[in-house]
């Protein structure tokens, strides 16, 4: 079953906000040989009781089903939703991108940032730090362009995602 073509899936996992829960999730992926493309986690409830973990993974459909089932049986997991299967949803990622340079390259970096609606959040006479957000493809594209104008380093959040419409997952 592992020889079927791989698909990219974005999973939302609601878990008890308790010590060790992230280790359980990540450990499950490594122990069973599943992939993690990106992972984000933060406390999302009023009373700090629930965290939301967004995992982007890839694998053939039966493996994705297994991942869902394995996650679902962990005791501190409230809910697992495969947003890719769920339907319309929004995925966003944020990156901080540092570029160094002077002269034309510096001007070009600013011009490109403007097109991508990336905001400079730090500046010196020889550098910028841009904040860019959007789909992973957009962030990838921006980073690729910055390589040509003096990219120094990148920090990315990984994907966060939520379903469209009035309903909670």
């Amino acid at each position, binding site marked *: 079953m592992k020889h079927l073509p791989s698909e990219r899936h974005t999973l939302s996992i609601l878990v008890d906000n308790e010590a060790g829960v992230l280790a359980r999730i990540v*450990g499950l992926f490594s122990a069973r040989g599943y992939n993690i493309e990106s992972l984000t986690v933060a406390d999302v409830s009023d009373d700090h009781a629930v965290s939301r973990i967004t995992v982007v993974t890839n694998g053939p459909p039966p493996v994705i089903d*297994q991942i869902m089932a*394995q996650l679902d049986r962990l005791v501190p997991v*409230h809910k697992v939703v495969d947003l890719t299967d769920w339907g319309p949803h929004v995925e966003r990622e944020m990156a901080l991108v540092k570029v160094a340079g002077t002269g034309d390259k510096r001007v070009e970096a600013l011009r490109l940032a403007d097109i991508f609606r990336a905001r400079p959040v730090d500046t010196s006479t020889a550098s910028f730090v841009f904040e860019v957000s959007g789909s992973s493809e957009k962030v990838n594209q921006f980073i690729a362009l910055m390589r040509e104008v003096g990219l120094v380093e990148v920090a990315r959040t990984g994907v966060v995602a939520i379903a469209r419409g009035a309903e909670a997952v």
Partner: protein
Amino acid sequence: MGTEMTGADIVVQALTDLGVEVVFGYPGGAVLPIYDALFQQNRIRHILVRHEQAAVHAAEGYARSSGKVGVVLVTSGPGATNAVTGITDALMDSIPLVVLTGQVPTHLIGTDAFQECDTVGITRHCSKHNYLVQETARLGPVLHEAFYIARSGRPGPVVIDIPKDVQIMKARYTKPGVISHKTYKPQVKGDLAAIEAAVDMLAAAERPILYTGGGVINSGPVASQLLRELAKATGAPVTSTLMGLGSVPDDHPQFLGMLGMHGSYEANMAMNKCDLMLCLGARFDDRVTGRLDAFSPTSRKIHVDIDRSSFNKTVRVDLAIQGDVGSVMEDMLKVWRARGHRAADQKAWWEQIKGWRSRNSFGFEQKGEALLPQKAIQRLYEMTKARKPIISTEVGQHQMWAAQHFGFHEPNKWLTSGGLGTMGYGLPAAIGAQLAYPGALVIDIAGEASIQMNIQELGTATQYRLPVKVFIINNEYMGMVRQWQELNHGGRYSESYSDSLPDFVKLAEAYGWKGITIEGPDDLDAGIQAMIDHPGPVMVDCRVAKLANCFPMIPSGASHTDMILSAADERGEADDDAKALV
């Protein structure tokens, strides 16, 4: 609001409230307060083992034979790490356990303190769930929740790590009412529409088979009864995994015997040729399926399991029903009767099965003078069956021969390490079962190599006057390793000879046991009789043919239809693909 007491007293009180009668353990620095609390009460009996691994296996034997949750108490650091093999064993075989481990005081956690280890980190992957309790007030609720998690859904081991200061501090404890977990809610009842679909598929099948596993045992004795009713109603043949033996009586006319790598020819052929497979509480383990792409190619498959992650893990099924196997079978029978179904005409199917059965795949031929191991187990069965014994095993050839030649007629009488395959399981498991059933005849069928892995537990049996019997099938080899070396590695017996064996009789006597040697076929019956007749613990050193192989066998990487039935079919050296499989 309950009374204020120390954490250690809360542990003992909660265990008492939970109905715990026996705790298997070993003291140490980080659990001294709990041992002190145990000393000052007489409701819970503590069984002092000789090694923490054995404490867990004993709790498994206790749990598997009685259906209760097994409880273990060990110290921090090496106490916890020694327990890891047993905890993993219980996870693989779905045995309900609660394992209490001591931990260094909270202010020392993370400092590499004496006998500190990251117990929750180490056991995260080998337990169903685990806790580090950092406040005494949490101890009571955590203990009650742990028992609920251990025994509900797919059972498994739950570890509770308790720092020493948490055992000393005081808090209020109240016995909770009904436990319900906010997120963990196992589905017991199966989906009725799916059950109806399953019944219709079953009624329409021409070549059905019931493939049953350890889930039937875990569901409780009623499930075994329901399985027999389902077999009767449908007229379908039944086969069982290693873990499910006993759910259907061995001599039931519809029972085909165990399936899988060392299962019967008829069971494996029927699995391959069926048109409908109803899997009840089994998990399509690799020992059962053989080569996956050749596994039962013409059948539609229905899978009943309480654990959703068992569905489609290795074998795609046509219909999955999540729920307790007992509850689902009960509903299936109701639907079957309500719809007025009768067992379909399976004459041609049973004719085919009769043909496979006539190969007598568990048969063996006496050649030469030496006692055959199969014969020894067969006689052991015949001479003890009236006592309805509880049988445990170690791991290896003797385990498979026991599964093949010892007949099981009831659930909870067969204790063996299936998933993890842990040598050293049998003696402590027998001790645990004997504590659950003091009057029962409990026999560990062992190998001379396996028995040495937890041989120190002879002392535990002596201390508590437990009349367990150890029947060693002694062929002076790690037999299954040697067999694979013979079949796959050109007969190069690398490190598989059991050299420098102890004199088992003297060893038994040194621990206050009776020791008996069976030298050959002539001593067999007398030796077994002397073992049964002795009121205390007995170790039997039964010398058998050294080079006997366990057949039939599906070689690694082969399909159900490629069974080796006898030594005449052996192939000498395997190709690299087959060698890479376990």
